[in-house]
């Protein structure tokens, strides 16, 4: 058993719902107890969908457990097909459905429905949401595109509509972080390259579209967590290569363009970035100088965390002090990315571990999920959201992709916004005792009256579940009162680091009592 408060991912059947909801004419019959319908509101509220997800739940109750749950399932499947007339039916069980062992696949097949039935085996007690989405997409692609697979050894037939290269876009789902606008941005980009987009799936695809996935020349994998297994099967079955670069950030977008043009057998057209890519200039402009070496902590799903680490180091000049993911499926990629930065990756789905790590590293900016947003708020550190799980405010009305050149512009704005503006930061260093500019003053763009949490003043390690023997969050012993007072004059956003560095410096040199002199010795030793 695992003690959990927050969970980064839902159960795998929620992943299946994300795929079913993304598709156009596919219905999902879920063998699940009363109450599991709560998942509907993720789609209707967080994503603000204007219709119910295409999911029918059997919602069995205790009185049904006597043995007619199988009958209940068959009735629900029959009714769903009659009422919604889908082109294909996904069937499966939630965690409780799995325990009562009714075999939705077998039961649905026995109904002899006039449409394809795709049974989903989603082990709820081992796997999670993203895995469930990937598996569902893979099974759907296999079931619907499989019948048109060429005989082994037969070459791919020539494309029907002439020589223009074409590709599919794989991976966008319902409840995906910025999937709506990423797709729009990537479709636009491929259009400027002269590449035709055959099918986008699962988002917006009908069963017929899935059936003709094999006709395109290659596949673009936008979100490996969700589409890699389907892309690998399409490669094996139809000989379609797929992209490996996710175009998040200016550099990654350039690499993606090179990769796509390579797969399409066309040269990279010149002038793609003109007028579209503002982020590189913004980042070079002098106002951004103060961003240099800002210490940033990054956590999220594997794809977004790795992409963010690259942008942070290569495109904004930050120093990445922490990098991690909750996606075990992406642990290797994230470890490799962390290795390149000379740090150790944090692979965990326990947000208390993440919180402890953030507190320990005392970064100046946190890039993460909804949970990191809260952690950063508790610790008084600026934060921007880069990955699911997210709340309703991260399904914005305005156009805000993460991918492509416009995505890079969006990222520049949203990461820099929570930081204090350079000049403001500068003045804070100058006038430490200023009556308006002090610890209690938050960045001015957060409006008058906004206060920095008291937690900022001390680099303690808070936890949602505090340990019984936690010391009270007073300053650690070994500081003279005068040194403590001097420390308070250091701007709050670097104070945690200054305290840690000074204590480490003192410990390494066997200094028992930290004085003002020790503080400045350490400052000289470490810089800034």
């Amino acid at each position: 058993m695992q003690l959990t408060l927050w969970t980064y991912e839902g159960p795998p059947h929620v992943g299946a719902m994300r795929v079913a909801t993304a598709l156009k004419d596919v219905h999902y019959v879920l063998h699940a107890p009363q109450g599991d319908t709560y998942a509907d509101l993720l789609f209707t509220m967080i994503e603000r969908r204007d219709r119910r997800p295409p999911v029918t739940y059997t919602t069995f109750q205790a009185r049904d457990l006597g043995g007619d749950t199988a009958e209940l399932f068959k009735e629900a499947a029959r009714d769903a097909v009659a009422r919604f007339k889908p082109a294909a039916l996904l069937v499966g069980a939630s965690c409780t459905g799995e325990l009562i062992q009714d075999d939705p696949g077998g039961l649905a097949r026995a109904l002899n429905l006039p449409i394809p039935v795709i049974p989903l085996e989603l082990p709820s007690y081992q796997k999670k949401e993203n895995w469930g989405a990937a598996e569902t997409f893979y099974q759907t692609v296999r079931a619907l595109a499989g019948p048109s697979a060429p005989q082994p050894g037969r070459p791919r037939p020539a494309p029907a509509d002439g020589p223009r290269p074409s590709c599919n876009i794989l991976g966008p789902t319902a409840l995906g972080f910025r999937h709506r606008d990423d797709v729009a941005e990537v479709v636009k980009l491929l259009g400027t390259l002269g590449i035709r987009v055959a099918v986008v799936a699962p988002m917006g695809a009908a069963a017929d579209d899935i059936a003709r996935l094999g006709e395109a020349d290659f596949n673009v994998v936008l979100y490996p967590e969700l589409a890699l297994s389907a892309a690998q099967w399409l490669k094996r079955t139809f000989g379609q290569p797929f992209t490996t670069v996710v175009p998040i950030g200016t550099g990654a977008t350039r690499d993606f363009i090179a990769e796509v043009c390579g797969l399409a057998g066309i040269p990279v057209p010149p002038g793609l970035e003109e007028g579209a890519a503002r982020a590189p200039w913004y980042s070079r402009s002098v106002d951004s100088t103060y961003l240099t070496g800002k210490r940033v902590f990054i956590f999220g799903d594997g794809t977004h965390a790795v992409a963010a680490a690259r942008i942070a180091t290569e495109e904004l000049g930050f120093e990445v002090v922490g990098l991690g993911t909750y996606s075990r499926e992406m642990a290797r990629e994230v470890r490799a990315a962390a290795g390149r930065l000379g740090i150790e990756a944090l692979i965990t789905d326990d947000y208390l571990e993440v919180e402890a790590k953030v507190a320990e590293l005392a970064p100046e900016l946190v890039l993460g999920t909804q949970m990191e947003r809260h952690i950063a708020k508790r610790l008084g550190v600026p934060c921007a959201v880069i990955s699911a799980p997210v709340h309703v405010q991260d399904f914005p009305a305005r156009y805000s992709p993460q991918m492509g050149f416009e995505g890079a512009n969006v990222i520049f704005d949203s990461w820099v916004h929570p930081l204090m503006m350079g000049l403001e930061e500068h003045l804070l260093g100058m006038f430490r005792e200023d009556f308006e500019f002090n610890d209690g003053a938050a960045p001015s763009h957060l409006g008058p009256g906004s206060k920095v949490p008291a937690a900022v003043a001390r680099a303690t390690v808070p936890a949602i579940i505090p340990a019984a023997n936690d010391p009270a969050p007073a300053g650690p012993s070994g500081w003279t009162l005068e040194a403590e007072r001097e420390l308070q004059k250091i701007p709050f956003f670097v104070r945690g680091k200054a305290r840690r560095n000074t204590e480490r410096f003192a410990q390494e040199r066997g200094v028992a009592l930290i004085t003002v002199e020790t503080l400045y010795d350490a400052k000289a030793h470490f810089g800034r």
Partner: protein
Amino acid sequence: MTADGNFAPAALQGSRPAEACAPELPVLVERGQHEVFCGLTGIIWLHRKIQDAFFLVVGSRTCAHLIQSAAGVMIFAEPRFATAIIEDRDLAGLADMNDELDKVVGRLLERRPEIKLLFLVGSCPSEVIKLDLSRAAQRLSSLHAPRVRVLSYSGSGIETTFTQGEDACLAALVPQMPAETSASPRSLLVVGCLADVVEDQFRRLFAELGVGPVHFLPPRSSGELPPVGPQTHLLLAQPFLAETARLLENRGARRLAAPFPLGIEGTTAWLAVAARAFGIDPLRFDAVTGPKIERARRALQRYRKELEGKSVFFFPDSQLEIPLARLLARELGMELAEVGTPYLHRRHMAPELALLPMGTFLSQGQHLDRQLDRCRAARPDLVVCGLGLANPLEAEGLTTKWSIELLFSPVQGYEQAGDLAELFARPLRRRAKLARLAEAPARAEPVRILAAGE
């Protein structure tokens, strides 16, 4: 005339007479897909109420995800709830599972020393694999006594719908309540979670009336469990407490039949039943309640203008639907298209049913798609439903009020009567305000900047 023939306070004279809506009223009983929460959801308000209790759900990732989705950002307000997620290896053998649970609980109590009462909350997975949480609770209680009391109840979806989770939780507290002594005075026990502000208002009202001593279940701290016995008069503040009431009656408590304290009429009748049981002079009753009733009337007046003649359709959710429908029909003049409730407790609901307008269409249980068909056919002015249905129905042109807010807001008693009406009036007012925006394309006169001198 109140529902069960008790005296009619003067304050209620002049309200619409209760048309006979016999308790034998026909009810459409439906089975099919239920779009409802399970009983685990009750933890969200229960853990705020009992301040030294911790709720540990023994379940799956789905359970953790549900609470997280329903509790939103509350997760970061240092909540006193968590999920012990069952994993594959736990399913391999049950003996191991009890060891695992002991370990989790041990670790939890070590880290949260301020916890005095721990609820092990059963879920669908734990019920289906027959993990005996009541035995686990006894074992853990003896292990952690006297510092922590460990109890168990089930909030699983297969057994409980939404607010029935509170019923199951309070029912687990009943055996823990001390017995009255022979010298115990007659006392009033108000049962059901109420917002603190509402509880305090009722305390003051009962004190002014001379009714007392008054105890509330659940108490704000687990050490303050009230006594129970034959001298206890039991007044339900919430309509979903069937099991809790049954267990209290088994311990000798006498239930006072009353409508529920929603709106002026419900609150007055509810107080009157208690006043009568304690032999309070009707003149004193009228003197105490009169000014408050007058104030609530003033608050309700403006909403009646907005709501009168409008029709409302209730999807089943919390069992509050019938009392709310009674309030909307009788005090705000709304028409009831359909009143759906997840479960209808005929005995507890009798005083409410007697007040419903003749011919009210009641339904119990749910077949979601058929009910949606009925709702679309009725085209009600307002639909009261859960968050999974609200936006889709809005997109179809219907106006909705999401029902969960009625559990998460202070709505009982005189001072909240206006707030409660506001909850129903606001969506209609908003739709009227935005009516122009909905017309596409906008044909409104464009706003022009007036040139100087114009």
